[in-house]
């Protein structure tokens, strides 16, 4: 199946922990993104990478560190999790501006 995939689908953790979310796309796209969808369903871009290079960092706290080992993968590591980090995190990839989204990772910080 050609798609954007994310793991895990659900993540429940305690405040203060460090966690990672992984994203992979087999669409051959050069650009990948992380978006955050908050409890009011508002979507906002966090990061964008093009061919393993950081292009966009939308004033996200530096507790969030994206890493792109190759152009098919963009992982998101979050240190010292806070209650306000609870959200759905979507990965996306794009060849030309149209973005193709992963299924989302639902993060709940207790």
């Amino acid at each position, binding site marked *: 199946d050609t798609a*954007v995939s994310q793991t895990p689908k659900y993540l429940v953790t305690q405040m203060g922990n460090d966690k990672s979310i992984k994203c992979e796309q087999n669409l051959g796209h*050069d*650009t990948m*993104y992380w*978006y955050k969808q908050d409890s*009011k*369903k*508002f*979507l*906002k*871009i966090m990061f*964008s990478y*093009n*061919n393993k290079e950081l*292009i*966009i960092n*939308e004033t996200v706290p530096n507790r969030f560190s994206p890493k792109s080992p190759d152009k098919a993968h963009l992982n998101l590591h979050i240190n010292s999790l806070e209650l306000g980090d609870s959200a759905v995190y*979507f990965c996306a990839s*794009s060849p*030309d*501006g*149209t*973005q*193709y*989204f*992963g*299924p*989302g990772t639902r993060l709940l910080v207790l």
Partner: protein
Amino acid sequence: AQRVTQPEKLLSVFKGAPVELKCNYSYSGSPELFWYVQYSRQRLQLLLRHISRESIKGFTADLNKGETSFHLKKPFAQEEDSAMYYCALGDGYGGATNKLIFGTGTLLAVQP
């Protein structure tokens, strides 16, 4: 500043009724506009991109630069159209700097 406004949080219609989901944008350049749909607890899926001028699942949207609008329309709503609809503005021209600026979304509820 670039902005997308979807004035309705919720739009409730009966099956078979026409649907119009409003979207207005603010952008200094030539806009690239999209509609995405998110069915309950699923991923966002591209519905329409203005440059393709396609009709998907009976939905159409026309870019009106004079009114800075990109409203989504369907003549006859179906129950399976019930979902969250997001209007989005592409900031860039398909290059590496392109990011999507989303509106706050409109929940469409189609009643039987």
